[in-house]
Structure formats: C-alpha cells, structure tokens
C-alpha cells in the first residue's frame, strides 16, 4: 500500500511536469503580448509592467481585424458544410453495405497522407484561371476536401458504437421511422457530430499553406497567413509584441474549446485515428 502511494507521488510529479511543459510557451507568448516599450527587449520572462498597448495596436489595424473576420467566417462555413457532408457519408460507411465503400475510405486515407503543398501550388494556378483566387470560396473548397477525411473517420467511429437496434425497438413500440430516428438516434449521435465539428474547426483554423498560397490581399487572407505578414502599426516599430498579442487573440477560441470539451476532443482524436 505504501509502495503504491509512493509510486503515485512520482506519477503526480510527472503530471505536474507535463502541465508545465504544455503551458510554458503559451505563458511566454501571453507575457510577451503585455510587454510595452523597452520591456520587450529586457529578455525577462515576465513584463515589468503589464500593458494593453499591443492589443490596442492589433485591434486598430485593419490587417488583423479583417483577417480575423475572414478566419472566423471561412472556418465556420467550411466546418458546417464539411460536418454535414461527412455525417451522411459516415452514416453510409457505418451502417450500409455498398460497392465503392472501400474506394471512398481509400480516397480519404490518400488525402490525409498527401502533402498539402503539392495540391496548393496547382490550385494556385487553377484558381487564378477560374477566378477563385483570393476569395472566401477559393479557401472554403480546399478546406472542405481536406477536412472531410478527418470528419468521416471520427463520425464513422462514433456511429458504429450507436446501438441502432434501438431505432427498430422504438418503431415496434409504435414510433414512426422519423420519430424513432429523431428521438433515439439523433441524441446518441449528436455528441459525435459535435466532436467532429470541433476537430474540423481546429484543423481549418490552423491552416497556413492554403492561406498563404491562395490569397494575396485582405479579401480572404486568414489569420495564420496574416500573422506571418503582419508588420505592426508602424513601419518603424518592431512588430514582435503586436504579433504576440494577435497570437494570443487567435489562441483564445482554441483554449476555450479545449477547456470546455476536453474529454470529447480526446475521444474523437483517438477514435478517429486508431479506430475510425
């Protein structure tokens, strides 16, 4: 008993170390974002004086606010469409027998392993020809195609675990097929759909390659690409601290989602990859 307890102490030390490991770089960028004036070059971890100056600079710059609007809009639209399409496909994969199912899953697997840059550069050409270059739609379409495999895997893993017989049981008890589906299956499937949506959103929110190859102006450039081109409020000041502030702002949605749905994200991630 005492040996087991002693063992636990070490595991807890390990746990604390992991938390420190995961959060130090985040704490650092947060700290950097609150450094004003000469503090930025004092090379200390924490600012000597906390200031919101950098956040004001960021929010006053059109460059960042339009990029933020682009990112939010494009990510939400692409996530919604992707999850809806994936929902139908995953239902078919999990529940139905049809020729071509293997082909569908092989295609999805092929896309997951394919280097995005190898698609992005030809798309750069194609989008210029058809007029989709530097537009929202020009980003949404490739995002769909690249997030679909992930959503399909995650959702089909969830759908397989749903006890579908309950649907029939409900029908035997006198429910119409639609009622049975709505009252029995939808509540069971909803958590999976939600998880797929979060993971898809993360993947799209994180994209950088499409963001820089398929846009050239503020019209559609999402945050990650804008961050890489961010030059601050003035051409003469170092943009380091404003970049840090902008980084913190785009990290907030991710952290909030993680805090709220930690368990669901872990389940989706491991089920989708290991079992999907």
């Amino acid at each position, binding site marked *: 008993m005492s040996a087991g307890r002693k063992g636990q102490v070490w595991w807890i030390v390990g746990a604390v170390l992991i938390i420190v490991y995961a959060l130090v770089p985040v704490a650092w960028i947060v700290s950097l974002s609150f450094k004003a004036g000469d503090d930025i070059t004092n090379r200390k971890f924490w600012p000597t004086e906390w200031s919101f100056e950098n956040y004001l600079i960021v929010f006053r710059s059109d460059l960042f606010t339009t990029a933020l609007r682009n990112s939010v809009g494009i990510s939400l639209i692409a996530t919604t469409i992707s999850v809806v399409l994936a929902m139908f496909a995953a239902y078919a994969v999990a529940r139905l027998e049809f020729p071509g199912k*293997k082909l569908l899953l092989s295609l999805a697997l092929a896309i997951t392993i394919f280097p995005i840059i190898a698609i992005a550069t030809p798309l750069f050409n194609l989008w210029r020809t058809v007029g989709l270059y530097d537009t929202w739609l020009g980003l949404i379409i490739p995002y769909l195609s690249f997030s679909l495999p992930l959503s399909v895997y995650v959702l089909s893993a969830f759908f397989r675990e749903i006890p579908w017989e309950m649907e029939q049981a409900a029908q035997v008890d006198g429910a119409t097929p639609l009622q049975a589906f709505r009252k029995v299956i939808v509540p069971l499937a909803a958590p999976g759909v939600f998880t797929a949506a979060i993971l898809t959103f993360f993947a799209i929110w994180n994209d950088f390659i499409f963001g820089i190859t398929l846009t050239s102006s503020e019209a559609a450039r999402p945050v990650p690409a804008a961050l890489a081109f961010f030059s601050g409020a003035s051409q003469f000041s170092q943009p380091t601290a404003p970049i840090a502030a902008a980084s913190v702002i785009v990290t907030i949605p991710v952290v909030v989602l993680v805090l709220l749905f930690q368990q669901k994200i872990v389940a989706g991630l491991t089920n989708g990859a290991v079992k999907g």
Partner: protein
Amino acid sequence: MSTTVPAAAGEVRAEADRQDAPAAAPARRQRMTDRARKERNLGWLLAGPAFVVMLSVTAYPIANAVWYSLFDFRLTDPDGRSFVGLGNYATILSDVLFWRQFGVTAAITVVTVAVEFVLGFALALVMHRALFLRKSVRTAILVPYGIITVVSAYAWQYAFTPAYGFVNPLFGSDLDWFGETVPSLVVICLSEIWKTTPFMSLLLLAGLAQIPSTYIEAAKVDGATAWQRFRKVVVPNMKGAIMVALLFRTLDAFRIFDNVFVMTQGANGTETLSFLAYRQTITRVMIGLGSAVSVILAVLVVLIAFLFIKGFKVNLAEQRGA
C-alpha cells in the same frame, strides 16, 4: 467514459470481416434483392457528395501538377512555355541544393519523430497511471495540439531570439540561434515537437488503454520487472497504436512547412522540401519546376507510407476499420 476506450484490435478485425463477407460472396450479387439495391443507392446518395468534393479538389490539381511538371513554364512569361519532358525532374534531381533540402527534411523528420515517440510514451504512461491531476493533464496537453502552428512557431522563435528571448539569459549563453543552420534547426524541431507530441501521446494512451490489465497482473505475479513488463507485455499489445502514431507523425513531419516559413524563411540552409515547392511556384512563379517538386514530394510521401505499411506490416484498412 466507455466511448473513449477504443475497441481491441480483434474486435475491429471481426467487424471488418463481417463487413467484407457479403460483398465477397458472388452469389449475392447475382440475385441482388430489392433491399440490397436500395441499400446501394442510398449508400451512394449519402456518401456521394463527400466523395465528389474530396475527389474534385485533389484529383484535378494532381493531374494538373503532373502535366505542368513536363513544361518549362514561367507564369510571367506564358508565351515562352515549352515542353521539356522529364527535363525539370532531371534539373531538380541533379541539383545539390535539392539533396541538401532532402537531407534537412529527413533529419527533421527522424529527430522529431524519435523524440516525440519517447516523450509521447512517457506522457501517455503518466496520463495512464497518475490518478490525481489526470483531467488537468489531458486538458493542458490539448492546448499545444489546438494552437495554430504559426503561433507556436512565433512563441519558440521569440524565446530563442537573442534580442528578446528569455532562453539565452536563462542558460547564460549568447548564442545567435538563427544565425546558423544547426541551432536554427534545433529551434524548429523544438517547436514542432512541442506542438505535436500531444497527438502522439493521445494515440499511445488509447493503445495503453486497450491492454487488458490482467495481462500485466499475470506478468507481475510471474515476477517480471517493470521494464520486462513494459517490453514483453505492454509494447507488443499496443503495436497497432504505435504503428499508426509513428506513421502519421512521420508523414506529417516530412511535410513540415509552417515552422520553417515563420522562423527562418528557409535561410541558413533550413529549407525543407515543402518550402522548396512553395518557393519555386509561388515566389519564383516557375510553375513547371515547382510542379515537378510537388510531384516528387508527393511520390516521396506515398513511398514512406508504403514502406511503413510493408515494413511494419500495419494493416491500415484494418486500423481504419475499412
């Protein structure tokens, strides 16, 4: 909680067999019942849109890249376009710079995946065994996973930059990390490792959770040491999860781009293959040459996946439950 525990490998296989059985039976195809036909039509109706979307944005660009890779074609000089056959490939493969970038990419891949595997395993074990703080660890570890790679790259870059970073004062050094190749690559690898180890560790944790605790108890009773239990019981029983984690991370690391773009822009010999493809096509608008780089990169990725699947005998279809 039960939904978070993936099915044992055997269960997945049984399921795969069950699904394969009807399609494999020719007798069934001959007298396809109304019900089966309905199922097929519904299947295609539901899966069709996703299939079309996935195919349309990938198949055409790939074919397009293969086609353009055969031309000497510069976007700023469309009239000067001429067919050169495999000339672009010859140019690239005989270029010293390409092989250097191939080496850099391979080195980043090997180093990050090796470190991530060891670190990820340690993390997974802690998450598996620590009773207290388990939930906090899982939450904390998802933060690097969710953070934008560009943000992670900036965080690490600034930490190591001599002018504002806290790292040099911490160790009393005055190294200019981004002035030379190896230190730059070290920081690039560090940020990549920090960002993607959580993914690795969560997959390994899922594998750990699959091992029946009775196996470990039995080994304990037989007098196996902790290391022996780890090597003879734990690792063989989570082989599937290990292979999937390694494969996916290797392919991912090989495509590394964001970190390099933000931290060095490929300076000081830190250019990777993805970055080369980007620079040729987007910056230099050498469409023909850039397309050839893209095609080479794609072939390499497929080759890695193939070697993994053959070499480690991973049945991806089984892992994916296809």
